């Protein structure tokens, strides 16, 4: 049995976390047979009895322990039963189980009894999922029996991470995104090979003095290809990739119609938006890491390994150099996460994903153009691209923390602002797609 399954059989919540109103509702819930035929004894009784046994057992344990008791019988009912007050333990625990036994057996528990006892007992029933007992699954009948044991909890522990996992799986398995990652990974290779050829050419012709700073430093040290690749890609190609994922996040689901089913599931709007953003953040860091990794591997293959000469002229060890690559990846990832917030905000305004994607890319390009106009220098600090290349602070000795800190603050401000816009829009939006 895997870890996840093991966890599943434990009680889902502690009684202390269950609001009283919910507790009462749980307790007072009669068998849903009031609308259908009472459960026919022939099919449902055996399973129902097993259910009831599970509940009784747990209540009994609760009686003794006074806290929570996992149920561990055939049906593996995740039931927790505990007394609200110490003196009520015995009676309420057993009454609750009697009600469950009655309803699970196909009879109808008097509702008033459930409510009256529920007023004192703090009892919460976890959901009964019949399939943990091998062979119990399969028929409609068994599903109905499961339902008799109590309503499912509104929210399971770990459900948020499950949705995030689903989202990540979708993102990192989607062919389009894989192609983007492959393209990003190939750029450092192309860059490295090209620089190598140029260097060889120059060596052969004996003209070494004309090399530019970047080319010279890459040719001189394998780690420099990582910095060169990041600074090259952070300008446009990485923003495009992030825009595709984040701009598609809401608009893509809306356009495909899947958004209405996700929200009816119910994924929850704030929850879904958070998952979508975290997914885009993971993708942001992933592309920065992929570029750096590809550049490191290429660099190691093509250029000499050794102490790294930084932009400020000092030379540091390879380990120190690798650490600085890592810092750069983190910084670029954070910058891309800020851009993802912009794309996500745009994504909540349209049902056409390409609109949100193109909109974000256009914003990036416009910002670059504005930066190029000297007269508009004053607005530079407010433009995201201004800060994206500031990871070169990691190439100074000592590391230029000031510039990077300002950059991270700018990213934080972007995330806060556009995250709020996205949230305000998405939580108040009519989903008509």
């Amino acid at each position, binding site marked *: 049995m895997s870890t996840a399954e093991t966890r599943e059989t434990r009680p889902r919540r502690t009684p202390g976390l269950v609001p009283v109103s*919910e507790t009462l509702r749980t307790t007072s819930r009669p068998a849903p047979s009031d609308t*259908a035929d009472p459960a026919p004894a022939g099919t449902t009784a055996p399973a129902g009895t097993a259910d009831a046994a599970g509940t009784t057992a747990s209540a009994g344990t609760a009686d003794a322990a006074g806290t929570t008791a996992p149920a561990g019988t055939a049906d593996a009912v995740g039931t927790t039963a505990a007394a609200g007050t110490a003196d009520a333990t015995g009676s309420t625990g057993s009454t609750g189980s009697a009600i469950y036994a009655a309803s699970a057996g196909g009879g109808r528990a008097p509702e008033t009894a459930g*409510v009256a006892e529920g007023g004192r007992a703090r009892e919460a029933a976890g959901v009964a999922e019949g*399939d943990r007992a091998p062979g119990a699954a399969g028929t409609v009948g068994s599903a109905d029996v499961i339902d008799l044991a109590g309503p*499912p909890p509104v929210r399971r522990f770990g*459900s948020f991470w499950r949705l995030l996992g689903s989202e990540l799986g979708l993102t990192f398995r989607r062919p389009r995104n894989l192609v983007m990652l492959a393209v990003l990974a190939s750029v450092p290779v192309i860059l490295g090979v090209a620089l190598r050829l140029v260097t060889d050419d120059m060596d052969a012709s004996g003209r070494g003095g004309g090399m530019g700073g970047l080319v010279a430093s890459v040719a001189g040290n394998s780690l420099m290809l990582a910095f060169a690749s990041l600074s090259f890609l952070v300008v446009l190609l990485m923003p495009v990739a992030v825009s595709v994922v984040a701009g598609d996040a809401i608009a893509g689901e809306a356009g495909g119609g899947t958004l209405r089913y*996700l929200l009816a599931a*119910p994924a929850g709007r704030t929850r879904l938006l958070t998952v979508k953003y975290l997914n885009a953040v993971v993708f942001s860091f992933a592309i920065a890491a992929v570029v750096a990794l590809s550049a490191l591997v290429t660099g190691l293959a093509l250029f000499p390994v050794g102490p790294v000469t930084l932009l400020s002229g000092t030379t540091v060890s390879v380990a120190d150099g690798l650490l600085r690559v890592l810092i750069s990846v983190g910084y670029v990832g954070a910058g891309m996460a800020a851009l993802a917030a912009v794309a996500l905000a745009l994504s909540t305004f349209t049902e056409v994903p390409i609109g949100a994607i193109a909109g974000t890319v256009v914003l990036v390009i416009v910002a670059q153009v504005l930066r190029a106009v000297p007269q508009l220098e004053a607005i530079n600090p407010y433009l995201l691209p201004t800060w994206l290349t500031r990871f070169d602070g990691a190439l100074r000795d000592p590391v230029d923390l000031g510039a990077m800190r300002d950059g991270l603050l700018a990213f934080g401000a972007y995330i806060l602002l556009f995250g709020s816009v996205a949230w305000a829009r998405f939580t108040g939006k*009519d989903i008509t797609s």
Partner: protein
Amino acid sequence: MTSVMLDAGAPFGAAPPSARPAIVTRGLTKRFRGGQVAVDALDLSVPRGAVYGFLGPNGSGKTTTIRMLLGLVAPTSGEHELLGLPLGEALPRVGALVEGPAFYPYLSGEANLRRFDAADPAAPRATVRRRVAEALDRVGLTAAAAKRYRTYSLGMRQRLAIAAALLGPRELLILDEPTNGLDPQGTREVRSLVKEIAAGGTTVFVSSHLLAEVEQMCTHAAVMRAGRLVAQGSMASLGGGQVPRVRVRTPDTADALRVLRSLGLADVRADGPEPGDGVSAELGGVAPERVNAALVGEGVAVRGFAVERPSLEDVFVRLTGEGFDVDG
């Protein structure tokens, strides 16, 4: 005694959630930007265990109502409640099919169901494999589980959407036009699936613009017209004003008329001027077999004998004063 505390703040009375109707709306209204009123002061009440037909031509506000019920669209005014619970608590117990299937084309049918199951915070991860397999089996898609959604036919897509609505134990199913795009065979399958689900105690709320479909599946119905509720109730109560007629095909028109009158039937009349056109009468409380026995006993040659109940369409024509435009 605790019921007051229990339901503090609940908008729909003091009954415990399980005793309240599966769906209640009060004055539910949606006015879209531009002033168009899609749904106008809707008061629905769907009893537990019912198969509730939600009828109306296309554009009459059915889908907007369903979107409001599921929390996708915010009402302009009015309120609604599912299963007597706050929406967030109710939705995990509700399976929904809204305006046709929508899935990820690059995922398999199975992967699609897993995706939507992951979005449900109440669905247990440990059981997802079994629940997905069961749902696929119920709609007959097991063989196509591993195929990409892109390759599915329209009927398969519709069935996958129904499978998605059946991923967990549901107390309420909301199906918006579930037979849209299905061939007659698929339509029959959906109909029998709905009946099977309802037999398990699940309340089914099914919208349709097809009268015959609702007539065959539903225990209750409501009729929408231009955003307003025209009628709602059990099928019996909707048809209550109309009594079944007995129709007899016979060459002995005069004798048949005499026998029917002697049985005390109302509105006895010949259905046409020719001798073979037959006669008909309102059946009232008389058992049809008695009518037939009396006819035969009096020597009337009975060539055809039928009890005709008024179709839903007749009822709606009477209720709305006009024909039901099924093509909207």
